[in-house]
């Protein structure tokens, strides 16, 4: 076996802020890490997950036991680095045998300086989080005392109210794609590579702007549409992006995914809230309330949007319509697991967002058509 597993077994543990503790062995970088401990139920796509900027500030627990089965490779990167703070697994693998593997998963985690723990009873951990909610926690070497570890956990700022977009956003604007399609200006709060890839593959030219960009700066380039990216942290902490957005809605077509969805919803007057333990995985059913169709979706969000009436769920199967500062709007999609809001459509101006991840990477491709629809709508707006 390769280096990591043949090394002397180092024990480690996960500690949650409520005192719950789960022992395992250290398999990543020899370090401690703290953050919000969350779980994802996806059975494959570990590399895509950990490089998704939306996981910034979080420690990922994989519910599927074997993680690392097919190694890692350049093409599965969703950004240029790992954003998760640490990884919790039941049975980590470090094999490089798969034909496409360029490096072993655990070797790569070590290379990247990411602590990881394996042989944890992840199911017990997930059941705990399911009951008690996502909370702060950390992965610590066994040599660190519980008192020291708890001190570090408590020192970690809570996810509620945290602005992580400013952490993951690029310093400079970059341009992607050289097609003849529309120019799309994205507010990059942590965009996934798959989103950019899907837009570029369809001929779009995508500008990725730092999230502090002003509306005037964006409009100066006269883009065909504005795109609101996914990203980490609490949408309620991003008033500055919401303010920017309010200057853009109705001026340019606005589309968004995940955090972008939450921000557009805020811009049209809705509130967000923290889900007890989030939606993370590749198997959530989402219903399009307009067509009645159900898609199996890729999900990764810890916050969600409240309905106009302030409720967390949408009881009926009809789109919820209400008036906003930008004309009529409707909540267009719901999650069939817990009936939370999954999509917004603006009816009088061009705009629409989804809470889930149509770009997949990881997860199902059921919703890729949204990118086609998005580009068609831009073309219609331009015509």
């Amino acid at each position, binding site marked *: 076996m390769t280096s990591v597993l043949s090394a002397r077994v180092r024990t480690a543990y996960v500690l949650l802020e409520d005192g719950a503790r789960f022992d395992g062995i250290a398999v990543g970088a020899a370090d401690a890490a703290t953050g919000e401990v969350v779980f994802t139920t996806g059975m494959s796509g570990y590399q895509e997950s950990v490089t998704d900027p939306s996981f910034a500030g979080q420690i990922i627990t994989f519910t599927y036991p074997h993680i690392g089965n097919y190694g890692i490779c350049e093409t599965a990167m969703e950004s240029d680095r790992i954003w998760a703070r640490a990884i919790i697994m039941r049975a980590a693998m470090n094999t490089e045998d798969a034909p496409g593997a360029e490096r072993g998963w655990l070797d790569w985690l070590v290379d990247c300086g990411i602590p990881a723990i394996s042989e*944890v009873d992840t199911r017990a951990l997930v059941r705990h989080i399911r009951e008690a909610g996502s909370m702060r926690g950390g992965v610590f070497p066994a040599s660190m005392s519980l008192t020291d570890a708890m001190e570090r956990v408590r020192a970690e700022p809570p996810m509620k109210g945290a602005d992580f977009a400013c952490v993951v956003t690029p310093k400079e604007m970059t341009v992607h794609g050289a097609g003849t399609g529309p120019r799309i200006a994205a507010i990059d709060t942590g965009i996934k590579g798959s989103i950019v890839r899907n837009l570029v593959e369809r001929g779009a030219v995508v500008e990725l702007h730092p999230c502090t960009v002003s509306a005037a700066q964006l409009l100066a380039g006269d883009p065909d549409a504005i795109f609101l990216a996914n990203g980490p942290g609490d949408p309620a902490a991003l008033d500055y992006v919401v303010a920017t957005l309010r200057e853009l809605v109705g001026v340019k077509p606005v589309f968004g995914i995940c955090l972008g969805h939450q921000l557009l919803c805020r811009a049209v007057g809705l509130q967000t809230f923290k889900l007890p333990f989030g939606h993370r995985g590749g198997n959530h059913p989402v219903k399009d309330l307009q067509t009645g169709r*159900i898609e199996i979706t890729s999900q990764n969000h810890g916050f969600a949007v409240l309905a106009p009436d302030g409720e967390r769920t949408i009881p009926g199967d009809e789109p919820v319509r209400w008036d906003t500062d930008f004309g009529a709007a409707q909540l267009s999609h719901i999650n069939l697991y817990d009936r939370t809001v999954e999509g917004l459509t603006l009816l009088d101006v061009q705009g629409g967002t989804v809470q889930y991840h149509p770009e997949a990477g990881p997860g199902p491709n059921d919703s890729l058509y949204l990118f086609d629809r998005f580009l068609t709508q831009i073309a219609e707006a331009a015509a």
Partner: protein
Amino acid sequence: MPRRDDIQRILILGSGPIVIGQAAEFDYSGVQACKVLKEEGYEVVLVNSNPATIMTDPEFADATYVEPLLPGPVRQVIARERPDALLPTLGGQTALNLAKELHENGTLAEYGVELIGANYEAICRAEDRDQFRITMEKAGLKMPRSAIASGWVQETKSVDLARGLAQAEDAMIDIGLPIIVRPAYTLGGRGGGIARTPAEFRAIARTGIEASPVGQILLDESVIGWGEFELEVMRDHNDNCVIVCSIENIDPMGVHTGDSVTVAPQQTLTDRLYQKLRDQAFVVIRAVGVETGGSNVQFAVNPETEEIMVIEMNPRVSRSSALASKATGFPIAKIAARLAVGYALEEIDNDITLCTPASFEPTIDYVVVKWPRFAFEKFSGVDQRLSTHMKSVGEAMAIGRTFQQAFAKAMRSRELDSIPSLTGSAEELLTRLEMPGPDRYDVLMAAFAAGADAEEIARRTKIDLWFLRELQQLAADPQAPFAGQRTYKAVDTCAAEFAAETPYYYSSWERFGTMGADGEPVAAHEVRRGDRPSVVILGAGPNRIGQGIEFDYCCVHAAMTVRASGRDAVMVNCNPETVSTDYDTSDRLYFEPLTLEDVLGVVEIEQPEGVIVQFGGQTPLKLAAGLQAAGVPILGTSVDAIDLAEDRGRFGALLARLGLKAPPYATAHDVDEALAASERVGFPLLVRPSYVLGGRAMEIVYERDDLADYLRRTAPADGARREIFLDRFLENAIEVDVDALCDGRAVWIGGIMQHVEEAGIHSGDSACVLPPHSLGPEMLDEIREHTRGIALGLNTVGLINIQYAVTLDGRLFVIEANPRASRTVPFVSKAIGVPLAKMACRLMLGESIEELQLPSEAMPTGHVCVKEAVLPFDRFTGTDALLSPEMRSTGEVMGVAADFPTAFAKAQAAAGALLPDDGTVFITVTDGDKPGAYAIASRLEDLGFRIVATAGTAQAIRGMGVRVAEVLKKVGEGSPNVVDLIETGEIGLVINTPTGSGARADGWEIRRAAVARGIPCITTLSGAHAAARAISAGRSGEPKVMSLQELHRDRLRVG
């Protein structure tokens, strides 16, 4: 769209007898469908010829027809019951083919029956290889290059073998070897194989054309060595599709998926590649046009190039869908049935969470491994190499938190009768691995233990290195995966994202050191035990010959009875095909291997009132002593009584005390002792090893030399001391089987069955009749008296099965007694309308016979039931299609009619050996049988049959006045011989009693040819008598169908 109100009555077709490729999974699917449709308020009409199924219990349908699954009887059922719809997707290939026929012959249109679940066009697009290929090409999906060779001649509606072979020859040149050969419309790829040389190709092409009912074979470009993956897809009428489960075959392409060790979920594909398969699976189900329901799509994936090819799809529930249901907790058949009657996925609740809809994809946080169970030890001389032609008879599944846990648990769930031989050098072991056989993983583990290299094994086997690295670690330390604490975790479809309501558990081993917020260790298990007393029922493990679905039937009945008694029923079993492992069957299901340690783990959590070991066949009985030693209460008949019945000496003493006769017997431990004892006991002898089920290695020997030969052949490889039983064999005796209930004080006899074949044929392989057709009232009284004596003598509490032999001079001998559920319990229960297993379970829970309020006479008058065995000879070329003391049947059927001959004819038809109405009968019998052959020949002659015979038989029956139209040469004496005539289809019935067991004897060739052509081949004179009477009875028109509910109108309240 909610429930359809325009249909009220739905016809469901079962899959018939258990055969290789079509097993208990269809009982599981059918039961789920029946339950759901009844819950939805529909009337359910069911046709299935298999009495050992739970689905044919009268309470699961409104009208249950145990009738042959043939167009004639089903048409009669349709005419009587006038169903609005036919749901054909739950009874495997049998039901689908039958539905297709009923459509084609106009029956469905004539009676206005709508096909739901899959329409005719979709069935054709999926099942017809040519149409499937065109459909896939149109949808833009790739399949291996292929061609069809067909010998079908439309004008004559017959198969021209030469034409088929010529087409195959051309195709071989186009495609290039190696080529995979698959016959059209056969179960589990019967008659197919992989050809690597032109000679091999020609041989397999011939068998394939012969095996296909339409003389058609599909020739595929070989993708041997590619990864093999299966996806279980569901689709509703809103066109919403979900994948329930992905399954990866550890054995790469080339080994039939039914014979492969498989893993769920898939382990080796990247997310991107897996999503591609998922997308393609949806394209397949939409292109084929399965509007609602489940389908199984198989893919081959080249791991190097990531090329994907579609291999096949089944537009119905399947073995894999049963596995996927058990692996994930997503009940595919149940949901498919709801979808078929109008619901959409989102309108159906997830049973397990009760708070989320069925329109989702299960995600799991454990690993599932399925192992096939083979029975090659039953078929000496057959080719044990695995190929695209399925050969396994059952399967075991195991769940673990890691692959190694699951693999090791599955391995110990197999319950092998014989330990594979693993001697040899590492190189020899590696060479064995190149040709996959039933013991390949045992060999592989031994090779690792001998220091073999994973890369080298990968090179030779094409098994993915991911699996090999894991297996290498497991071989290095088999105990490593089981370090830490045993915990019981729930199967919940959602990786703990939501709270599960359904108590379906598996054991896993986790590290110590999991503390809750309060600093206390978190409970090691998730089991919510509740306060009610529980009873643990031990299941039968993987299906194999000798221990089949009958025992699962009994276990399910036990669960129902325990629940009805106010206790919690706890099921332990590891067979994914069965109804017993449906989480709906018991209050708590533990999907666990049936070993003492695993069962004791469950007992520790459950602290049950007792454990039931009587119903799961030999598997739980083997654990009884260990459980008792561990202080676990065994319900019903004591462990000591079970031992008394098994121990020849103790049982002999009991019989002597009761004044009952048994054939002379002896027990020996080595060759000399056996030879000495044989003189004392007297020939002919029935010899067998002790403690066997299904007559393993049981033979009749006529002289000393034969016995010496037997002892040499069956000697244990390690020279271990063994116990051999020698019994005097009673020639020409009538065998009788009795199933009875006993509470320790009173005895109630459920059924006295007379075997059609003489003693010497294993009871599991013999046809039997209820009530007995030729035993007088005095003999029946004597049998009843004996049965009472033995049942009470053994202090039986529950069921007992006793076998007797009645000699020609009217003497009654006790052959053996088994104080437990027997293979015939479901048959008897259905014949008499009293559920014996439920009654037995009530006795075990403390009730008395009197309290059961059983009818005074078990067998109602007015009908006769015949049970016939179904044998897998057509799958095992190279084995003799001959009945013997060694059981070889995989399943059974039941024929019900007003008289014995008609019931026998129905049973024959249901078993697939449709007796001819006219034509030519070939008769060849041993000298001893020649006098008896006359009566049969004469009867058949009177019925208008043309008689042909071999010289000796011809001479004998001519002498008695029968006209023999033709005397045939013996095989090997030139043409035309009988084998030629069988092959050309000229002979419609073969009566051939065996002359010795020499392989490749004349009879062997004759029986092989008959089996290959699907011509009934009767190997006993008594069977021939019954057949002649049945043919005669058939002259008065097609036998009428009748439902069990009509038959037992007065009794069904019992239980």
